[in-house]
């Protein structure tokens, strides 16, 4: 039996790059899906069948992770020893904190039944969407910087460090967009208990 690699890049047999050709990735996904399809193992041994099952699981996880630029970057960062989400507030730009604060004030007014904050929230939503787009462009540029560097080099490490900072900022912005959406459209939002917030 072949030895399965649990590393998504190795499993897909693609280079450890942050910028990926999605069509290429999809093609590999279909090829590997056919190769490991349970139907092809129905007459094989129990070990081989269970390995095919395991391979399919890695394949699906890997495809879901690698096709999404943010998940892909988080995966590679963790793999390279740069766990995401372990940074302190000093890494968040002060202007963004001010905006987050103002936004939360507006959200609170709206929750309190004051609808006058609604147009402001719509504007804020547009603003945060624009911020997310800007952050995504920043990520693209950093991905290219990482891909162009020697593996394990100082430049590579520097790029990963910067990517981590940008990803954390992106997460903050994502949370804001989610909160605004929830406030603007409470019916569509999932129920969240006070206990859950605690």
């Amino acid at each position: 039996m072949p030895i399965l690699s649990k590393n998504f890049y190795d499993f897909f047999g693609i280079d450890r790059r942050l910028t990926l050709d999605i069509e290429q990735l999809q093609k590999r996904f279909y090829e590997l899906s056919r190769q490991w399809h349970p139907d092809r193992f129905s007459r094989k041994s129990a070990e081989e069948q269970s390995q095919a099952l395991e391979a399919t699981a890695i394949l699906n996880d890997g495809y879901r992770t690698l096709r999404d630029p943010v998940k892909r970057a988080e995966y590679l960062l963790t793999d390279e020893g740069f766990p995401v989400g372990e940074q302190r507030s000093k890494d968040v730009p002060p202007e963004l904190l001010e905006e987050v604060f103002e936004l939360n004030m507006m959200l609170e007014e709206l929750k309190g039944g004051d609808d006058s904050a609604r147009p402001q929230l719509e504007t804020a939503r547009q603003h945060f969407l624009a911020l997310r787009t800007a952050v995504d462009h920043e990520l693209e540029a950093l991905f290219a910087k990482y891909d162009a560097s020697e593996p394990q080099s100082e430049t590579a490490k520097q790029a990963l460090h910067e990517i981590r900072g940008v990803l954390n900022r992106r997460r903050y912005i994502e949370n804001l967009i989610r909160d605004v959406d929830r406030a603007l459209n409470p019916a569509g939002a999932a129920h969240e208990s006070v206990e859950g917030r605690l």
Partner: protein
Amino acid sequence: MAYSDKVLDHYNHPRNVGSLDKSSPDVGTGMVGAPECGDVMKLQVKVNPETGVIEDAKFKTFGCGSAIASSSLATEWLKGKTVEQALEIKNTDIVNELSLPPVKIHCSVLAEDAIKAAIGDYKKKQTTRSSEAVAVN
């Protein structure tokens, strides 16, 4: 998850919620946040420039119960302390007082960061003012 009575008390009856005049030279403002959970905390101190004693402290926190409790407790402790004494408040003091579980320790860290940021802002304003005074002379 179970919360200590002290956390619940601060959460249900937060002390010193509000804001002070940000533009006043005697007011220091600290704004900090935790990217991982999206919490944001604003803590302000009003210092008597003659004595260096913190006369008033206010906060407003958007976040979980532990973050609210940590900053509420911090404002209680700050009042009546000198600026230098305030800088000695450690996040571990908050953890102990509120019996915060390990997963909520970052909330106390945030509160300590907020105190340091607010006092830092106040000190910066004071030095700018004294250098301006020198410039006038």
